[in-house]
């Protein structure tokens, strides 16, 4: 077969949390038997965003903060593809915040993975929107993307993992991929991914993560409950992780790709656009002009 681009060695610092995230994605892809030619990885700009260079598949390095519109464009052009947008917390929650909220609203069947290291790694450790007060002079209380995702009515799959607990992270990523493979909509997974160079939080986070699913009576189908539980966990000084929210199948809004393109085989990137194939309809359309 034709030789194609080979993944290069990751350019991450040894020990970077992103290695764990990539392992989880690779395992999920393997588990779901997604052929590499159907896999489109849309990377953000940041250390994290280089991931597509280190994996087998179609890679697209989007502009800083624009990976979601790009990924949605790919999916709406060809819904048969498995589209994974993957980038950093700066990329996604700072410059990309508007697109993040609107991607949740648009509800296209793509997976979005944020490698949250609570800093801007690639530009050398400035505070990001998730940095706590005091980090590198930061004075603004951080945002929590899980809470914000919960606030969007269309958001149907919301999870958080930790690259230090690879089994759980892998399970979440795999579940997200499955969700989008079934064209159920947008799946959002944030993975805590320590930056060993500028924000080495492995030990701290290992101590702090709390699986909300283990809270007695937790109901991941209850958005309001999920929201207040997440808040509670945060107030107790912990970091909520797990499959935090999931809309039951029978209550799902139809995903955008399914609404617009019910038959994935007939899509912008793949329909026959030759004049011959469309002749009759074109002629009728042009004839209808007055």
């Amino acid at each position, binding site marked *: 077969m034709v030789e194609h681009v080979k993944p290069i060695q990751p350019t991450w610092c040894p020990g970077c949390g992103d290695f764990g995230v990539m392992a989880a994605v690779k395992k999920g892809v393997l588990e779901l038997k997604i052929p590499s030619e159907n896999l489109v990885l849309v990377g953000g700009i940041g250390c994290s965003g280089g991931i597509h260079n280190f994996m087998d598949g179609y890679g697209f390095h989007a502009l800083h903060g624009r990976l979601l519109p790009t990924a949605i*464009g790919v999916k709406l052009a060809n819904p048969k593809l498995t589209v994974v947008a993957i980038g950093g917390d700066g990329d996604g929650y700072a410059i990309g915040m508007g697109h993040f909220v609107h991607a949740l609203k648009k509800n296209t069947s793509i997976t979005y993975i944020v490698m949250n290291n609570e800093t801007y790694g690639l530009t050398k450790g400035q505070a990001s929107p998730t940095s706590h007060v005091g980090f590198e002079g930061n004075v603004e209380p951080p945002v929590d993307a899980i809470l914000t995702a919960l606030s969007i009515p269309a958001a149907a799959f919301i999870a958080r993992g930790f690259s230090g607990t690879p089994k759980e992270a892998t399970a979440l990523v795999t579940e997200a991929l499955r969700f989008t493979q079934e064209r159920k909509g947008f799946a959002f997974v944030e993975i805590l991914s320590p930056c060993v160079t500028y924000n080495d939080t492995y030990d701290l986070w290992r101590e702090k993560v709390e699986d909300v699913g283990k809270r007695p009576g937790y109901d991941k189908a209850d958005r309001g409950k999920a929201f207040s539980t997440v808040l509670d966990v945060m107030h107790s000084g912990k970091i909520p992780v797990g499959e935090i929210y999931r809309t039951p199948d029978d209550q799902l809004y139809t995903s955008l790709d399914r609404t617009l393109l019910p038959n994935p085989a007939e899509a912008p*990137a793949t329909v026959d656009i030759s004049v011959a194939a469309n002749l009759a309809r*074109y002629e009728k359309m042009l004839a209808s002009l007055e």
Partner: protein
Amino acid sequence: MSESVVAAHPEHASQTTPSQPPVARVLRDLSVLTGGQGGDGTLTVSDLLARYFHAQGMYVYNSRSVLSRIRGGYAAASSRASVEPTMAQKALQDVIVAFHQDAITFGEKTLSADGFILGDEKVVTNPGQNTVLLPISITAASKLGNPLYKNVIAFGALSVLMGMDREVARKVVEQRFGRRSEEARAKNLSAFDIGVELAAKSPGPKPRFSVERGTAKDQVLLTGNQALAYGFVVGGGRFFAGYPITPATPVMETLMKILPQYHGVVRQAEDELSAINMTLGAAYAGARAMTATSGPGFSLMTEALGHAGEAEIPVVITDCQRVGPSTGEPTRNEQSDLFHAVFASHGEFPRFVLAPGFPQDAYDIGIQALNLAEKWQLPIILLLDQALGENMQTTPRLTLKGVSVDRGKLLSQEALDALAAYKRYEFTKDGVSPRTIPGMKGGQSQVTGNEHDEWGHVSVNVENRKMMMAKRMTRLRLAKPDLPPPIIWGDEKARVGFIGFGCTFGPIREAQGLLKRKGISSRFYQARTLWPVPIETLAPFLSSVDVVFVVEHNFMGQFARLIRSFVTAHNIESIVKYDGSSFVAEEIAGHVEQMMKEHASYVPSKTPIVTYESEGGGF
């Protein structure tokens, strides 16, 4: 007259002879201005007139001057109809329909000596000479329960005063409103009849004049925005993302209606950043994709434009220009985004900037742009302007003649399978690399806005950088024979030249006619490719005449300046307008006469024209 380039549109190729003095009150070329309050539907009168004259075989050119607000404020629309092809507003109005005193205050000075005013009694406080005052809105309210019917009443009255064919006019009303509901049909027809009746009872001659019938056949009424949208569909465009903005929104609205029928996707994005990046994503995935916007949105797309350049993504961006800078005047006409279109975005990459001059040109170039984008794998900017985009004009019926889809080096799976190795950015002679789309086995690649090697992996190697820059930039040179050629209109032997693009097309053509009648024959280089600057056709054109007037709607004489940066042409004069209103032929002709008087007469330049195309890295 002769055309250096075969004219695609025979009816434009013939010399226009508009603005002839009305012969015995049988008009061959007339214009009706309707002025009222924004949002009260004043445009409807113009629209009905256009449809009537269109049905009568005349050439129609509608234009408007509205404020960027939904109701209130002064809004005006003019409808021109001529036996000869026309693509511009008329300097003088033959009729003014006044739904507001402002229509008279502002419009009266443009009323021709023989013209008349039809005024709504209720609002016209200070009627001018030749005014027919009728109780239009009062009757609309009393007899039909809604003052908005005033528009159709006025149209009915005009049918009497302008000697229109009553049945045809009535049918126009029926067609326009009949589709909505039976009630709309009936009420509007009543309104028409009321108008007829009111006018019949009015004092003064009836009709005031009659209008000659035209012979235009197989024409349709279209705006440039609409024509572009149809071109997009027919050219295989299947993905569009945009964000509402005046005056570009109609492109999206038109596509919303038609594209889904072809399994196409039209998305209103959350902003222009999203729109352009969705478009890039879809184009990357293999869809022919476009976005359309106006200045402010286009400025927001600046970063992504360069991304398309570096990542080699075929994409079309339409900028339907309005008055800038910043929010400027959203509803008014200008062509001041040229510099931005050519030079915006940090760093250097190839792009084409194309500019159609009339609706069919927008259709044609719209189709061609999709082929060019895929063939040369780069971003293409289509520069429209408010006048071309929004003004409804008579246009030859759009056809599929010559339409074909050329996807350039997009590989089939078979062709891909036959390769030993697939590299997205492989170095090739023409700078264009074979392309795959996701889903193709073995076509996996890295597509990126970082500098990269042939595989698409990040590289800062200096030799690679030089070769990649050359690979991308040489296309600006190599693609030239492929790009929309200019159309040269007028006399081959003329010593006076015009250069223009976009909406100045109509006024320049008409000015040529006016000048010709004064013994000044001219040639007009209608530029359709603005970047790369088509120096290979511009230089001979500049050499062929004594003086060239570059006519454009901006302050800096942008196209003139751009041309100058490639040639030492000593015979360029700028005619610019940047007040938001569009040129009329008389203005241009007047400028030319004035300048020719000032300079005694232009003489052939003694200095040869030198071109500088190979600056720097040499594209």
